[in-house]
């Protein structure tokens, strides 16, 4: 199967006076429609790796290809379009816009594309919200929802533009174990249903065990890469 993300010899150095190399030349290929996790201790460089995969951060050296496009030479606006159309983000702290309702949050990535939401997209948003079971709270402002509801809204939002990749940084880190299990199985389900690639960054071994491939980062290198 084709690779959706390809990283070649990615190095990342922070600081200009005191230089700290966080990633020491990472090579990683991720297949389309896969469901994998990246694990590692905090400070191992896994979040940096995710930010680079998500084009939020630029590597100091190395090459990145996302859905066949080389992104490390793109300008900020091109990168913004790539993010908007190809990548959905799910963060640990949900990061919904508190000024907007759940429904408005879900269609935001579509509006960022610069298009007026069509009837189809409204339907799609409603359908997604049904899938993640937040239809009941669709008109609530973000702060008026439970943690689990917020995270599920964030998942629906990540999916609205039908991206090829979902990058999830500790998506269940802020949830209790019951809700956490539900959110996880939801992601699993969406991966099967839409064929979306899920890259889940976590430090929780038990969550990682449930994925199809575990990439372990230790001290800025890939320490282990287990496929099943």
């Amino acid at each position, binding site marked *: 199967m084709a690779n959706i993300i390809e990283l070649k010899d990615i190095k990342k150095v922070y600081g200009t006076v005191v230089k700290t190399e966080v990633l020491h030349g990472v090579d990683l290929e991720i297949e389309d429609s896969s469901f994998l996790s990246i694990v590692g201790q905090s400070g191992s460089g896994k979040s940096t790796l995710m930010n680079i995969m998500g084009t939020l951060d630029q590597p100091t050296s190395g090459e990145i290809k996302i859905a066949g496009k080389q992104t490390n030479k793109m300008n900020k606006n091109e990168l913004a379009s790539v*993010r908007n159309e190809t990548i959905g983000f799910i963060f640990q702290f949900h990061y919904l*816009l508190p*000024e907007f309702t759940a429904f408005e949050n879900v269609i935001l*990535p579509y509006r960022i594309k610069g298009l007026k939401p069509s009837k189809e997209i409204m339907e799609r948003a409603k359908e997604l919200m049904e899938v993640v079971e937040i239809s009941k709270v669709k008109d609530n402002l973000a702060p008026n929802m439970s943690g689990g509801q917020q995270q599920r809204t964030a998942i629906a939002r990540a999916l609205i533009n039908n991206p090829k990749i979902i990058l999830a940084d500790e998506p269940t880190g802020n949830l209790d174990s019951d809700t956490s299990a539900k959110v996880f199985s939801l992601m699993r389900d969406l991966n099967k249903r839409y064929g979306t690639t899920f890259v889940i960054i976590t430090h929780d071994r038990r969550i990682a065990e449930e994925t199809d491939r575990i990439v372990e980062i230790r001290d800025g290198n890939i320490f282990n890469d287990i496929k099943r």
Partner: protein
Amino acid sequence: MRLAFSIAMRFLSSSKTQTLLIVMGIAIGVSVQVFISSLIQGLQKDLVDTTIGSSSQITVSSSENNRVEDWQGIISEIASLDLPTDLTALSASADVPVFISSGDRTLSVLLRGLQFPESHVIYKTDNRLIDGSLAEGDGEVIVGKGLKDELDVNLGEEISIFTPDRAVEILKVVGVFDLGVASLNKNWLISTIGTAQSVGKLGDTVTSIEMQVSEVFRADENASVISERLSGSALLVTDWKSQNEDLLSGLNGQSVSSIMIQVFVIIAVSLGIASVLAITVVQKSRQIGILKAMGLKDSTTSFVFLFQGLALGIVGAVVGIAFGILLIIMFSTFAVGTDGEPIIRISLSYGFVMLSALIAIGASTIAALVPARRSSKLSPVEVIRNG
């Protein structure tokens, strides 16, 4: 753009107190501008009106013997000129200094022979007649209210006057005027030109030709055109501006101080907006970061803040103008003199109100540039990394 606008509106409406405070800030600034400028304009208009409203603004007189020959010819020549600002009044006057004896005292007064009805525009002699009728025939005269009391004469009675060359003339009092200025009411006798000419033995000459203009501050421009046209003759053209430099510099000082107040108000308002919006960038940095992570372009982020500035400016300006007009109405209603008339007749210039609104809106938008730049530079990674 639509998205930037709707995010801007949402940001503003989500922090209502903050929005209300900035709007009030802008509104108070604008209302102070509108009020102060209208007040000072009204004050200046009043001042100019009292000082030169009832006197000649451009005067043609003789530089030699105090006699202007062929005055009808000069008047029609001036009337045919194409002048920078229109003349509202153009009339001749023949002034003769005379003495009146009252009991054991001798009063020195000025007999002014005016060209009726043209001179009504300048001296409002028709409206300011408080008793009797205008002096129309030869030998008839109207006296000032003060002079009437001093001489203790009644309508229809005769007064005798002495000219400087000791000739005695008898004039009949037919009316009483009140020009609103005590010194004029005490010192002027007004008659027709003919009467004054015969008393002063002027023949068919007058002592001056007087004019008023529609734009008083351009009187000097007219004066120079007229003086150019009349050059060669022994005539002197003077205008009120060259003779009232103190008043002019006073008016100038007022205008400058009014502009200074307005400039500082604008600066204070702009600084307020800039600082509040700068705080908003920090408050909303999380939202901006996540929007950028979802693909919002840096330029669109800037527009979110520019739109906030613009919206605050527009609402602030509208509320401010309403406030300002309210202040003016209150001032005109409550700050009245004993006669029930407002102390200062405030004049509201719509042009200036519009200008002040535009300046406020412009300043708010410019003030939003700084936070807009900051927001466009904000990196999503920082927000996500720091939570």
